[in-house]
């Protein structure tokens, strides 16, 4: 029986003809086996070309590295008779923190020679085989020293044929333990606080005859997890050890070692260590304990495993944290990271090592719970949390309930030990968020409502927009999706008409819709809170709307109106989807330069042309057809001018600026995507009622799509709206933003149906000519619809992740993808 770890690099050793390939084929999948012959063939077209060996092993090591990085067992089929060849493989294993294992196939030279001679592709001297045999003999004693963690030697054909492989789990693999857990931060000898904390968490203590706690049980069968640093500095390290050892021994708790246990164990083993950082206190306290207890404590510490992977891989516990590449791995440096963390090599002004901010860079899906670094307040950073709240320094002892993610803390009775440097506060760390690698390059995203690939060039374009114009990307928690227009209408003179909008939604399986007035302004996303911290207003591409001196007064007014709603919804903040009016407030320059400029040019050029034509006509030349065309154009440019003028209103600073809210997207810990539009609009109405000057109401018409008379009424409503200069309407499934079809697919959150006159500023003054309309009706909406749906799904997922408290990079990658999607070449008039 050959035991090998589930994840390891298995190195086969044997002379030519010893049966390595047969053995590998028998026990492992073909893709698990990397054979030197095969790689020689790859690089040199000849499996026996020894001159290609160096190149072949280069490639073999590379492939082995990729497999091990992905956590796949890998078997190397080569003679591996020389220590330099094995050293290369040991290095690959170490680089990926997996255990190297050797299996030696030791057959008599004569057997190997017979086999070799039977193979037509092998032609070498018997002397070569003899030399190999000598190398093998020499190697046999060296494997352990070279760094192999397991050595299996199979002697003779019979033993080789009868071998069986058995896989063993790594010590740190406790994925099958699913808790629930109560994870306790650094105790440092604060036994009293630990007893209180366990009590608060619902544990019942078991005491010995002397009244000392020696175990604890939880009525709900919870498991305690200690993140290490049980000892030193505090008043009763032996008492803490006694309790935790009892709990671990009884199977009620799991414990990983801290650096303080590590040092204590070294001291107890008789090694020389510096008597600092509270170790003397522990030794003094232990001196009062019987020797038997000290022995047990030492054995307990020696048996601790440096980190655990728990709960199906969703939870990792290590004293000083653990970067993703080290999860479930075993090597010296993994243990060292788990115990001490990573340092930059520098020291700070207190002479303490500067820690490398691994948590900021952490992008793993497993939550990492750790201690080691005393902080004033535990806070999630990229799905990691430090539970050391400096109890021994007079802070608190903190526990995390898992999977509830609930924090429970008890304050320290006193400051038992003075800290060398002030406790770290998360706030003082300048950045914890977004890395350039989170957004650059080709990205594949699975976001719950679908999957998408962001091409590298779209990401590059979005990065430029984000980098040059956006508000702080970390605060940009959502961007509005683009919206598709309704299918083209065949109604005479119209490109878009309500009937097709209703038909679009009906065919998506929607039976009740709300028609909302489409405000002609600028889309504005408002993040507003009671405290004012982090509030902002941004555009559909994430740009700030106003300079701070205008923004703050605007936010202050919104805040006043929103406050009662915040209280009612029990949230600190809300994210509102609104339209900022008038259009000219933000787009004034665009209107003047682009739209009004074209109007002015047209209104000057066409009469001038008409005057020339009149003079020509007066000379008895026939230009009537041309004159008719120019005259029509002249009427069209007037209609066009009237269309854009309708959206221009004077503003001065904030005077005249209003917001038309129409959806409440999210609050603290919650996405409101599931609420129906009646709910959203009711809140919008309350804002309008609270401050009618600041907020503009959204007119709406709710209808049942099965009711033809309601549809006729809605059509009249739309005709009146657009006839009076309105842009049009958006028809939305009444059930809300996250409406899905019968096939459980996301439905478009709305389709727009724009007014006849408004479309002149989109499609040009002359678009209503029959031949132009016919051409425009052929417009292809497929891309736009796909894009709209994808952006909508990404946005919903961003709100969900936000609600779950996901790390900011996980929210940002989705929001960034929305912006990147806007680089897709889609007809901008749609």
């Amino acid at each position, binding site marked *: 029986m050959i035991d090998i770890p589930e994840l390891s690099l298995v190195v086969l050793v044997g002379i030519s003809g010893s049966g390595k390939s047969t053995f590998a084929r028998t026990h492992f999948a073909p893709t698990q086996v990397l054979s030197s012959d095969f790689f020689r063939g790859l690089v040199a077209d000849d499996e026996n070309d020894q001159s290609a060996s160096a190149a072949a092993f280069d490639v073999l090591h590379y492939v082995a590295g990729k497999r091990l990085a992905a956590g796949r067992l890998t078997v190397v089929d080569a003679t591996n008779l020389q220590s330099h060849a094995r050293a290369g493989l040991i290095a690959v294993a170490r680089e990926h923190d997996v255990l190297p294992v050797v299996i030696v196939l030791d057959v008599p030279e004569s057997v190997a020679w017979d086999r070799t001679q039977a193979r037509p592709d092998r032609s070498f001297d018997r002397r070569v085989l003899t030399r190999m045999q000598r190398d093998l003999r020499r190697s046999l004693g060296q494997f352990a020293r070279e760094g192999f963690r397991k050595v299996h030697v199979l002697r003779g054909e019979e033993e080789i044929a009868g071998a069986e492989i058995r896989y063993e789990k790594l010590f740190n693999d406790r994925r099958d333990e699913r808790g629930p857990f109560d994870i306790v931060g650094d105790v440092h000898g604060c036994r009293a606080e630990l007893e209180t904390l366990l009590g608060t968490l619902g544990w019942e203590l078991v005491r010995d005859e002397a009244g000392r706690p020696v175990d604890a049980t939880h009525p709900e069968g919870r498991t305690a997890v200690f993140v290490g640093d049980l000892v030193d500095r505090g008043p009763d390290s032996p008492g803490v050890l006694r309790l935790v050892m009892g709990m671990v021994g009884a199977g009620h708790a799991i414990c990983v070692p801290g650096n303080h246990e590590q040092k204590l164990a070294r001291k107890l083993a008789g090694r020389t260590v510096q008597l600092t950082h509270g170790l003397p206190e522990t030794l003094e306290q232990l001196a009062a304990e019987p020797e038997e207890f000290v022995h047990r404590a030492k054995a307990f510490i020696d048996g601790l495993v440096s980190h655990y992977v728990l709960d199906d891989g969703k939870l990792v516990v290590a004293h000083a944290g653990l970067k993703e590449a080290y999860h479930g791995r075993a090597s010296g440096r993994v243990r060292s990271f788990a115990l001490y963390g990573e340092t930059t090599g520098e020291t700070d002004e207190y002479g303490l090592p500067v820690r490398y901010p691994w948590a900021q860079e952490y992008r793993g899906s497993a939550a990492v719970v750790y201690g080691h670094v005393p902080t004033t307040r535990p806070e999630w950073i990229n799905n990691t949390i430090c539970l050391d709240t400096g109890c021994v320094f007079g802070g608190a002892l903190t526990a995390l309930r898992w999977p509830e993610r609930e924090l429970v803390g008890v304050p320290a009775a006193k400051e038992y030990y003075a800290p060398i440097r002030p406790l770290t506060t998360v706030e003082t760390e300048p950045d914890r968020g977004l890395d350039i690698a989170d957004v650059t390059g080709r990205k594949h995203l699975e976001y719950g409502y679908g999957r998408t690939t962001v091409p590298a060039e779209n990401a590059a374009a979005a990065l430029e927009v984000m980098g040059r114009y956006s508000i702080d990307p970390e605060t940009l928690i959502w961007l509005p999706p683009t919206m598709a227009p309704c299918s083209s209408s065949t109604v005479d003179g119209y490109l878009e008409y309500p009937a097709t909008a209703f038909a679009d939604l009906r065919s998506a399986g929607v039976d009740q819709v709300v028609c909302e007035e489409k405000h002609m302004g600028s889309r504005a996303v408002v993040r507003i809170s009671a405290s004012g911290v982090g509030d902002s207003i941004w555009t559909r591409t994430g740009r700030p709307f106003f300079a701070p001196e205008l923004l703050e007064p605007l936010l202050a007014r919104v805040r006043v109106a929103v406050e009662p709603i915040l209280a009612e919804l029990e949230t600190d903040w809300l994210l509102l989807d609104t339209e900022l009016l008038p259009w000219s407030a933000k787009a004034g320059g665009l209107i003047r330069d682009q*739209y009004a400029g074209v109007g002015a040019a047209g209104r000057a050029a066409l009469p001038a042309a008409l005057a020339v034509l009149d003079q020509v006509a007066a000379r008895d030349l026939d230009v009537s057809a041309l004159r008719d065309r120019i005259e029509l154009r002249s009427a069209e440019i007037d209609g066009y001018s009237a269309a854009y003028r309708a959206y221009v209103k004077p503003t001065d600073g904030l005077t005249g600026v209003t917001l038309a809210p129409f959806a409440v997207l999210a609050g603290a810990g919650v996405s409101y995507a599931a609420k129906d539009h009646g709910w959203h609009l009711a809140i919008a109405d309350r804002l309008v009622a609270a401050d009618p000057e600041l907020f503009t109401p959204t007119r709406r018409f709710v209808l049942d799509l099965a009711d033809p008379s309601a549809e006729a009424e809605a059509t009249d409503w739309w005709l009146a709206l657009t006839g009076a200069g309105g842009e049009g309407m958006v028809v939305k499934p009444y059930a809300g933003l996250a409406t899905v079809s019968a096939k459980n697919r996301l439905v478009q959150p709305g389709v727009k149906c724009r007014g006849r006159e408004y479309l002149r500023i989109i499609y040009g003054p002359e678009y209503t000519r029959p031949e132009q309309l016919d051409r425009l009706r052929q417009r292809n909406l497929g891309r736009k619809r796909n894009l709209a749906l994808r952006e909508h799904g990404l946005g919903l997922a961003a709100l969900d992740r936000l609600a779950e408290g996901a790390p900011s990079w996980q929210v940002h990658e989705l929001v960034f993808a929305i912006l990147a999607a806007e680089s897709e070449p889609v007809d901008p008039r749609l």
Partner: protein
Amino acid sequence: MLLTVTTTHRPATDLGYLLVKHPGKVHSFDMPTGTAYVMYPEATDDRCTAALLLDVDPQRLRARADSFELSQYVNDRPYAASSLLASALAKVFRTALRGASKDRPELAAEAIPLEIRVPVLRGSAELVTRLFTPLGWAVTATPIPLEEEVGGGDSRYVDLALTGTLRLADALNHLYVLLPVLDDGKHYWVAPDEIEKLLRSGAGWLAGHPEKVLIARRYLAHRKSYATTALTLLDADQPVSEEEAELPVARKAPLAGQRRDAVLAALAEVGATRVLDLGCGPGALLTALIKDTRFTEIVGADVSSRALDQAARRLRLDQMSERQRNRITLIQTALTYRDGRLSGYDAAVLMEVIEHVDLPRLPALEASVFGRAQPGAVVVTTPNVEYNVHYEGLTGMRHSDHRFEWTRAEFAGWAEGVAERYGYTVTIRGVGDPDETTGAPTQLALFRKTETTTEVTA
């Protein structure tokens, strides 16, 4: 779009011979973008006017989409005189443009009284006057107003009337070149043969025109290499860098070079060999850095991948020897994200970069550069707004993407604050010819990292 040409040279109807278009008919010509008409609203011996009217078909314009930036949107092409009209002019009046005439060769060679009117032309009255006056025209450029509803004021169009005594061919060539120049956008892709067209149409007048740089650059659609070739052929001066392209022409030439030299001098001063050019743009500084072998590792970083592509072309990265190529790396990054690739350099340069960042976002840039990348030295240059009074005709800031421009006191205040917060020392100096009251046009701050001496208290 429309233009009319009138003469009072008797008999005025000879204009028909010069233009090879009979005054008694309405002529029409099929153009790629519509139909061009030539007709005569008046044709007497005293006074004869020819009108060229281009009836642009928006549908055909859109069909040519890729070659034309505005084609997908509502645009002024059907109304304003532009390169479309210039093309029509070239096609319809080809003979007259060459100065040839079968029927009236002497008249074609003679300066005659002319009146030109272009009712809608893109351009400011000031620029139109600057372009046409040196050519011998009396210029009346009346701005076309915007309606009160959008706030009134002038639109970007003028109604242009020119009067003068010139050869008709010269007049038409002036229009052929200057209509697209004023429009500042060509409806077709600018190919190298446009240089030749420009030189041909500009023969005899462009070389001596005070605005030849602007004319060449705009006519050649801002393809710098083309403009440079054209100007060299015209024996013109050599200008300028992108950043100054929007400044009045006379001021730009020396400053870009002076600034680059000042930055190189600052890098030499701190002995930097591994340097970051943050916001390198199309590589104005990189080309200088690569020439100096003292710099062993050069990283050009910019938020715009297009700018990086331009830099790669400008540096001819694909033709560089391996040794040279290994010295330089171009990366896209945004200083609002953490980027480990930027750590560990001797020096970073932010040349004319900070003023392109929104003020509220500036602390994020400071944190990236001074807090995280932590190069040994940082060189920052930015405009000195006090100096702007010396730029004649400059309204607002020096570049349309500048989010702010600082006085010397504001810059110094910022620099000292940053130095204090991130453990650097800073010295500030001016770049460019200083003026007694306003200082130099550019200001430069050289930050050096303070050696961190760890005080371990026993």
